């Protein structure tokens, strides 16, 4: 039987994979995907709480819809910026973004 715990572990794993991806990947698109993965892990969490939780009002699901919408907006801006960068130097490697040092 798959229960809440399974979803939580899956969400936590996805979150970590996304984070690691965002940190270690060298390609801008892949970094972006990592961030999106993190956001989706949160969505999974929220939806799972609604499915298994004792809460009556499905707040989690509606919140998840908000997050999906906002994430879409974020991706749109991100792709626009990546496109601008690509036009200037025809690659999407983060290494060349010498600013990205942290």
């Amino acid at each position, binding site marked *: 039987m798959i229960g809440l715990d399974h979803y939580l572990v899956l969400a936590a794993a996805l*979150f970590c994979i996304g*984070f690691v991806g965002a940190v270690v990947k060298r390609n801008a698109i892949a970094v972006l995907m990592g961030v999106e993965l993190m956001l989706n892990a949160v969505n999974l969490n929220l939806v799972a*709480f609604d499915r298994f939780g*004792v809460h009556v009002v499905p*707040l989690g699901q509606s919140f998840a819809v908000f997050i999906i919408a906002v994430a879409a907006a974020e991706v749109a801006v991100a792709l626009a910026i990546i496109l601008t960068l690509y036009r200037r130097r025809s690659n999407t490697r983060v290494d060349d973004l010498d600013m990205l040092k942290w």
Partner: protein
Amino acid sequence: MSSADFLALSPLVLAAGGSIIVLLVSAFAGKRPAPSFAAALVVLALALAAIGLAWSEAPRAVGSLVKIDGFTLFAQALIFATAFLVALASYRYMAPRSGEESGGDSGGEYYFLLLLASLGASILAAATSFVTLFLGLELLSVSLFSLIAFRREKTIGAQAGFMYLILAGASSAFLLFGMALAFMATGSLKTADLAAALVSGTPDILVLASLGLMTVGIGFKLAAVPFHLWTPEVYDAAPTPVTAFIATVSKGAMAVFLVRFFAPSGLASAGAYPWIFAAVAALSMFAGNLLALRERRIKRILAYSSIAHIGYILIAIIAGPGRAAPTVAFYLVAYFAASLGAFAAISALSQGDAEHDGLDSYRGLASRRPGLAAGLALAMLSLAGLPLTAGFMGKFLIFAAGEGAFLWVLAVLLAVNSTISIYYYLRVVSIMYSPAPEAETAAGEAFGEAAGATSGTPRPRSARAFGPAAAVVIVAAVVVIALGIFPGPLIDLIRSLTSGY
């Protein structure tokens, strides 16, 4: 939704509707940015006026999502007024660039994005629910990504925009994960419920984890140490007025949210939480001030200085019920005014092609542009917290908010830090008031100003004329001095507005 709700939300509604209008104006205005600029100013002025309308309904909670009270309205007024001034400072700065390489659009979207970002910040300042917190935050962030990368002819801006986007996205994810855990533990999306769960006895592990994760997200937005690493790069690469906006509105809105979250519940002074705040505050102060010592570029200096100021504000937040809100509110006004003055002066100097950023290009500024130099110097002195400026009164209030040995230690640390900080603020001032190097050659040519001044050829008229950015410098200077000499009325106003905290 009743008409009273509508009145309470009228500033937000006006800003949201107005931003659409500004977008339409910019679409139909052809290549000229002026119509969108004017429209944005009108919308911001209207939103500011609507604060008065909303005040008649305050305090009022609209659903469980937002609560409009005195403190929120104060913060919103501050945000809209700041956005107004930032828009003014942007006009000349953005104008000559928007035509080039951008396929002939007017650059009017800039003002649309600015409005949207202020709207996000205003929502953030009113949020009482995770949903509005997230929405406000993202509205602010997504607009900022585009604003930072706005000058498409500059690669560095796009790089910084992307970097900020990734970091902001990741930190939002942390924040959201924390919210999800809090939702699981408390079954509610209201921030007050999380605070209540934290205060009551021994909070369970989920609640603590949620707080930890949310700290990452909030710390990033505030640029508190250890989440500050993006600050200098982004400040440096973003268009200067946008940097001003990030330094003031974006951080200020988050600080207001923190006060509203922590102060009423007494959470900031309960258990181990003050220690977390104190550690972050102390680290931010020291890291910001020490790193600023090594910088030679003024925007990076201001970036580090902003990190330090967030440290100071965090001290005020721990001060607890009754004192945190007024202190933070006053400090924000003082800090906003000084930062705006500094960045507006930099914008005014950077019109044309060259960015006026390296400290060396400021040498002898006092003889070339005495007014701007005086304004910038005043802003620096206020950030340093010297008397006759608003910064002094702000620091005084933070000291006075302290109670108990714990806060006195922080107050002494603040004293030490403010001494360190004076060194780099004064260096900027000192460079401006020292004579320009006699033989201005290659280095001088890079900066149209310096070359014009030393070779005796008249500088381009546009670079010299009194522009809107200079007006912002004057406004900021007046505010800084007025608050430095007569802070009483504002303090009383803030106290009456924040009486609920």
